[in-house]
C-alpha cells in the first residue's frame, strides 16, 4: 500500500470536505471529470453540490472564492495550472490579500496551483509562481516537497484564516510515494532538515528538495556531508532553521526552480548575509532556472532548471572555496 503526492492532495481535500461543511471546491473541470490532473477524482460524487465546475474564468473564480470566504465558507480554488493564475492575479493580490488588512475581516481561501516544470510542458504549463505571490503582503505561500507535507499542509491551508497559495509540484504528482498518510506534522512556517550534514547547507523547496537530496548523496560519495533544508513554506520563511544550519556548516547554497531575478533564493541569502554574515566561511551562492521562458524540448528543459547534477556542481565549487 502506497500513496502518491497527488493522491495525498485528493485525500486531504476529501477529509476537509468531510470534516468541515464550510469547505467547497471550485475550479475548471473539477466536478464529475475530477480535474485535469484528477486531484478531485470522485469528490463530486461523494460530496454532491460541493465540488463545482467553473467557467474558464480565473479572475471570477478567485473573486467568487473571496465573496464566499466573507460569508464564512472555506473555498478551495483549483487553478488548472499555476501559470493560469496570472489571469486571476488581480483578485488574488488586490482582493484576497488586502481584505483582512483593510476591513479586519479574514479571507480564508486556499488557491491550489499545480506548478513547476515537467518534460514537454513548455512556457505556459511549467511556471513556478511562489516568488510573485510571496512578494505581496497578505498571502501565505506553501511549497510542499513530500507526500506527507502535501497532505498535512493542504489540510492546514484550509484551516488557516488567511489566503493561502498552495504550490503543488506537478513533477511529484505521480512518482513521489509514501507508505501512508501522516498522523502528525510540522506546523506551517517551520522548515525541515531533510538531510543532516556539517560541510555545507543547501536550502531548497518543492521539487528542488529531491534534486538537492540526490546531489547530497552524490557528494557523500566524494566525502562531503551536505545538509539539506526543505523550506516547506516560503512565506512565512523559517529564517531561524536556515540560520542555525548555516551556523553549523558555514556554507550556503540556495536552490529554486523559479527564475533568478529576486525571489525566494535571493531572499534567503539576503537574510543570512544581513543577519548572519559572520557565520559564513564562503560567499553564499544560489542556483535558479535560466532567465528565459521554460523551454518545451526535454533536453532544453533539463538544462533550464537546476538538477541534481548542476546542484552538485555548484556545491563542489562552493566547498572548494
Amino acid at each position, binding site marked *: 500500500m502506497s500513496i502518491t503526492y497527488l493522491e495525498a492532495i485528493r485525500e486531504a481535500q476529501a477529509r476537509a470536505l468531510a470534516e468541515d461543511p464550510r469547505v*467547497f471546491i471550485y475550479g475548471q473541470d473539477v466536478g464529475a471529470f475530477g480535474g485535469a490532473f484528477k486531484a478531485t477524482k470522485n469528490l463530486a460524487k461523494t460530496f454532491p*453540490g*460541493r465540488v*463545482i465546475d*467553473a*467557467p474558464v*474564468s480565473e*479572475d*471570477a*473564480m*478567485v*473573486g*467568487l*472564492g*473571496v*465573496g*464566499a*470566504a*466573507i*460569508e*464564512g*465558507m472555506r*473555498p478551495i480554488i483549483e487553478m488548472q495550472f499555476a501559470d493560469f493564475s496570472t489571469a486571476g492575479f*488581480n*483578485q488574488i493580490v*488586490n*482582493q484576497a*490579500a*488586502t*481584505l*483582512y*488588512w*483593510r*476591513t*479586519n*475581516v*479574514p479571507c480564508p481561501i486556499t488557491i491550489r496551483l499545480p506548478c513547476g516544470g515537467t518534460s514537454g510542458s513548455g512556457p505556459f504549463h511549467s511556471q513556478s509562481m511562489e516568488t510573485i505571490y510571496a512578494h505581496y*503582503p*497578505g498571502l*501565505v505561500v506553501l511549497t510542499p516537497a513530500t507526500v506527507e507535507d502535501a497532505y498535512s499542509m493542504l489540510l492546514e491551508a484550509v484551516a*488557516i*484564516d*488567511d489566503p493561502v497559495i498552495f504550490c503543488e509540484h506537478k513533477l511529484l504528482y505521480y512518482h513521489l510515494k509514501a507508505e501512508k498518510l501522516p498522523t502528525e506534522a510540522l506546523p*506551517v*512556517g517551520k522548515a525541515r532538515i531533510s538531510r543532516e550534514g556539517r560541510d555545507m547547507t543547501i536550502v531548497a523547496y518543492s521539487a528542488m528538495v529531491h534534486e538537492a537530496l540526490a546531489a547530497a548523496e552524490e557528494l557523500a560519495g566524494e566525502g562531503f556531508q551536505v545538509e539539506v533544508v526543505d523550506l516547506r513554506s516560503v*512565506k*512565512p*520563511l523559517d529564517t531561524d532553521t536556515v540560520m542555525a544550519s548555516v551556523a553549523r556548516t558555514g556554507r550556503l547554497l540556495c536552490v529554486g526552480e523559479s527564475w533568478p531575478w529576486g525571489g525566494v533564493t535571493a531572499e534567503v541569502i539576503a537574510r543570512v548575509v544581513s543577519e548572519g554574515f559572520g557565520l559564513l566561511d564562503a560567499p553564499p551562492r544560489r542556483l535558479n532556472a535560466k532567465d528565459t521562458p521554460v523551454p518545451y524540448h526535454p533536453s532544453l528543459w533539463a538544462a533550464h532548471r537546476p538538477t541534481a547534477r548542476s546542484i552538485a556542481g555548484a556545491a563542489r565549487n562552493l566547498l572548494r572555496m
Partner: protein
Amino acid sequence: MFQAVLNPGALGKASPFCDSYLKAYRLALLSRILDEKFASLYRAGKIHGGVFMGRGQEVLSVSLGMALRPGDVFAPLIRDAAGRLAFGEPLLDAVRTYLGSPQGPMRARDGNVHRGRPLEGLFPMISHLGAMISVVNGALLARRLKGVSGTVGATCIGEGGTSTGSFHEAVNQAAVEKLPLVLVVANNQYAYSTPNSRQFACRSLLDRAHGYGVEGCAVDGTDLEACLKGVGEAVENARAGRGPQLVVARLLRLCGHGEHDDAGYVDAKLKQSPLGRDCLKVAEELMQSRNWAGPEALAAWRSEAVQKIEQAVAQVQREPGPDPFKEVWSALSCRALSEGVEES
C-alpha cells in the same frame, strides 16, 4: 419623519410609492450635500487623496439602495454615496473614511470610496473595475450552499467598467450559476475622459444582457420614478429566482471624474440634452407638480441634511488620527504566520 415636515394638507393622495419617492429624494439630497462637503474639504486641503462625487447619478444609486433589504449584499462603486446611505451605511462611516479617522470601518488604512462592512453585507470596492461582481457572486453562491434563500446581491459599475475582462467573467459566471445578482450599469457617457464612442461599439449596453443570457432593462437615470420602478423590479426579479438582472441607466456625470478634474472634455451638447438634466431638480419639480412637497419642505429637508453633515464632520474632525507607532503592521489575521510584524 419627513411627513412631519410636509404640510399634511398638501399630501393629497399619500401612497406607498409617494413615501418611497420622498424618502429616496431625501437620501439622494443628503448624498449630494455630503459629496459637496467632501469637495469643499478637499479644496481646503483637509482630505488626503481624492474625492469622487455622484453628482447626476444620485437617483439611480439611491433607487438600488432603497430596493435592497437588510441581509442583502451590496458592493457599491465610486458614485454611490446615495445608494450606500439608503442601504444603511452610517453617515459617519463616509466621513471617517474620507477624513482618515481610525474609528471608521477602514481605520485609516483605506480611504474615500473604499469603505464597507463586509460582515454586514456592504463590500468595500477595490479600484480595479469589474472586480467586485464576482465577489458578490461568491457571497450569493455561499448562501446557496448554506441553504439561505430570499436575499440578493447588487453591485454598480460605469460603462467604462463593462469593458473589463472581470466584468465579462463575472456576469457570465452569475448567469451560469443563475445567481440573484443585480448589476446596475450607470452609463454616464464618460469613463474619466473617454466617451462612449471609444468605449464600446454595440448599439446599446443592454444588448449584452442577451449575450449573457440574463434579463435586462433600461432606465432613464435622471428620473427618480423610472429608477425606483426599473431598479426595484430588477431586484424583485432577482429575489423571485429569475437569475441575474442587468440594469442599464443613461445619464450624464455632472462633475469631473474626481474633484481634481474640471471635466472640460464633456460635450456641451450633452449637457444641454435631456441626459444632462440634474436628477435632483427633476425630482423636485415632480414633487411640486404632484403636490407631494412644496418649497418650504424642500428647504427644510436641505437644511436638515446640511446640519446632519456638519455635525458628523465636526465630530470626526475632533477624533485623533492614526498612530503609526500603535499600528499593527500585519496583513494576516494569523499573526504567528505574519512576516510583517516587527518585534519591538
